[in-house]
């Protein structure tokens, strides 16, 4: 028997900013209040639309940062020269409104399955956002699905959710690609076969993988997983521009 997925909400509606949290110098989490929010799945996103005074509109997709059952929240990284993210990171304030459509997406989503297949989360930079929602979902449920996050990031200054992830050292590993914290045991390095093989569930355990980050990271990481013996259909990907 197959459950019918909830119908996506496809009409634009006003969302009110109820709070903001600085994650790092170029990243901010916006807490939202959305009338009639139906709840979301871990990994889903929303479209945000801004309208200029002259009527020009710009729309971008942003992953939902919180777990299902939590109020909607977006973590946005400023893209220099961008049309939408600089406004969301630097300008918008509590009480302001944006237009929003969602939650949407049924491919890059995770919920506990009956077989408790182990889950490997691979994040490149801001790609950590939907994967953090999956970690939080598992934790809130008290679910025992084996889950591990490998988070590739350029430097300590660019880590998002630093404190939250530091509290889960048993299932979260950081891989610095350009600069490490002082005394870090590993020199900066790109994700490679050795680093991945040390973290990945063996293919015999029928793992699922979720890979999210810049296109080059996703292609690279998905290729490494295939080399390790992961089934391509069990490697779900989401590419950020």
């Amino acid at each position: 028997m197959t459950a019918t997925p909830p119908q996506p909400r496809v009409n634009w509606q006003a969302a009110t900013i109820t709070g903001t949290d600085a994650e790092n110098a170029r990243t901010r989490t916006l807490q939202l209040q959305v009338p009639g929010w139906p709840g979301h799945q871990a990994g889903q996103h929303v479209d945000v639309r801004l309208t200029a005074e002259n009527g020009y509109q710009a729309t971008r997709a942003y992953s939902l940062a919180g777990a299902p059952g939590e109020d909607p929240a977006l973590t946005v990284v400023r893209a220099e020269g961008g049309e939408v993210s600089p406004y969301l990171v630097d300008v918008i304030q509590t009480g302001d409104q944006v237009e929003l459509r969602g939650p949407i997406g049924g491919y890059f989503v995770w919920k506990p399955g009956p077989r408790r297949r182990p889950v490997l989360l691979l994040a490149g930079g801001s790609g950590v956002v939907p994967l953090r929602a999956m970690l939080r979902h598992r934790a809130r449920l008290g679910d025992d699905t084996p889950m591990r996050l490998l988070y590739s990031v350029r430097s300590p200054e660019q880590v998002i959710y630093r404190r939250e992830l530091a509290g889960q050292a048993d299932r979260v590993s950081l891989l610095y690609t350009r600069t490490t914290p002082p005394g870090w045991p590993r020199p900066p390095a790109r994700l490679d076969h050795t680093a991945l093989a040390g973290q990945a569930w063996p293919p015999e355990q029928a793992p699922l993988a979720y890979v999210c980050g810049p296109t080059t990271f996703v292609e690279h990481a998905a290729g490494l997983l295939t080399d390790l013996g992961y089934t391509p259909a069990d490697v779900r990907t989401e590419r950020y521009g």
Partner: protein
Amino acid sequence: MPPIDGNAAAGTLAAFFGRDMTAAHGLCAACDQHAPLAEALLYGPAAGTALHCRTCGNLLMTMIEAPGGIIGAMPGLTRLDTRPAGGV
């Protein structure tokens, strides 16, 4: 702007089809690649949405959100399948 992927088109696809389509599988008319629309190449952001086959680059589908509705075309898809895992 580098290509992203079909996940970013989820909103437009849902507005067009009334359901999630990122997990739906499309069959490329040029190379027979059978893959979720989430895996398609998307160049953007732009006024319209164009999805290309990740394997061969063929233009699969276009959508433009216009006042009052959406105008779509699927010149490069011979099949679109919403069964779980595309029926595989």
